[in-house]
């Protein structure tokens, strides 16, 4: 989902940077408030960031014959709310943009928006919906994390299609082409991310049930995912 350095027209680069900035700033406030209220959750916040670090470093082969990587933002979005993930995703993306020439500074705003804003909010929304529809805890986690991953890549495709509409087919034709690269490749990876997020939640539910209950993620009666 990394749009490479310089590969967004200037106006788009500025626009996405402006769009992403309030989410990052708001997320920092959310995190600060949360840590002040519950300092013991600092470690868990580290785990959410570490999970995004690991997953976004793993480039996995996919059935389309190309490689891509999961995002790892679903876990933190479920634990700390979607707003908290914007600054965490921004740190991951900045690390990759500065040291790895992967993504870039001019495309940082667009990449933050897809990975650290759309993904986490999708995760939170899907989780709420799945729980409302009486899906089991594990299934809800799985759906939230994998759809967040997939929607991140759909967003990237839309961003690129908007910046580079097809000369004949316009936005739609261009979106179909970019989605053919990003979204199709991502489907098995999104499933992997969903499964890994369930594994982590199983571990948290086993060893830290109190913290999950404090976060109102686990109802008191449902100690096991």
């Amino acid at each position, binding site marked *: 989902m990394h749009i*490479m350095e310089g590969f967004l027209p200037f106006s788009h680069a500025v626009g996405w940077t402006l769009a992403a900035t309030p989410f990052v700033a708001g997320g920092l406030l959310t995190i600060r408030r949360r840590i002040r209220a519950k300092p013991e959750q600092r*470690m868990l916040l580290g785990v959410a960031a570490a999970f995004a670090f690991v997953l976004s470093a793993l480039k996995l082969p*996919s059935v389309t014959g190309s490689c891509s990587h999961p995002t790892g933002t679903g876990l933190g979005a479920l634990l700390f709310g979607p707003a908290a993930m914007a600054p965490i995703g921004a740190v991951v993306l900045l690390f990759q943009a500065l040291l790895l020439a992967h993504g870039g500074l001019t495309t940082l705003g667009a990449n933050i928006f897809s990975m650290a804003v759309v993904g986490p909010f999708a995760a939170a929304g899907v989780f709420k919906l799945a729980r409302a529809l009486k899906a089991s805890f594990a299934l809800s986690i799985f759906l939230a994390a994998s759809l967040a991953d997939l929607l991140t890549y759909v967003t990237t495709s839309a961003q690129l299609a908007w910046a580079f509409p097809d000369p004949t087919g316009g936005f739609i034709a261009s979106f179909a082409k970019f989605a053919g690269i990003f979204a199709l490749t991502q489907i098995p990876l999104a499933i992997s991310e969903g499964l890994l997020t369930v594994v982590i939640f199983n571990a948290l539910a086993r*060893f830290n049930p109190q913290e999950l209950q404090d976060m109102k993620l686990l109802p008191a009666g449902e100690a096991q995912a």
Partner: protein
Amino acid sequence: MKRHQNALLLLAVVLLAVLPLWLVDKPASGASIFAGADNKAMELIGQIAPTYQPWFAPLLEPASGEIASLLFAVQAALGAGFIGYYLGVSVTREKLRRAAAQNPEKTAGAD
């Protein structure tokens, strides 16, 4: 059951990553297989808008593919290390809590 569920989930993740290596045929032309989707998108931009010129270049580029893998491995290792540390702490804390619940007089009397 619980332990099996996690093992099965991890097995599924491994299969999802390994199966494409068998399922995907090598492209007939000289096109590279399992290239990064990010780079494929970059090529597609070149097809849709052949005149587009990137207007900014990365400030720092890894000197080679090996250095890039090194940095990605460092990124993954930092993350995995922290998660492992946290889980280790959690397991120990849970164990101590359980031990304290079983014989409270012993822990209370410890100096």
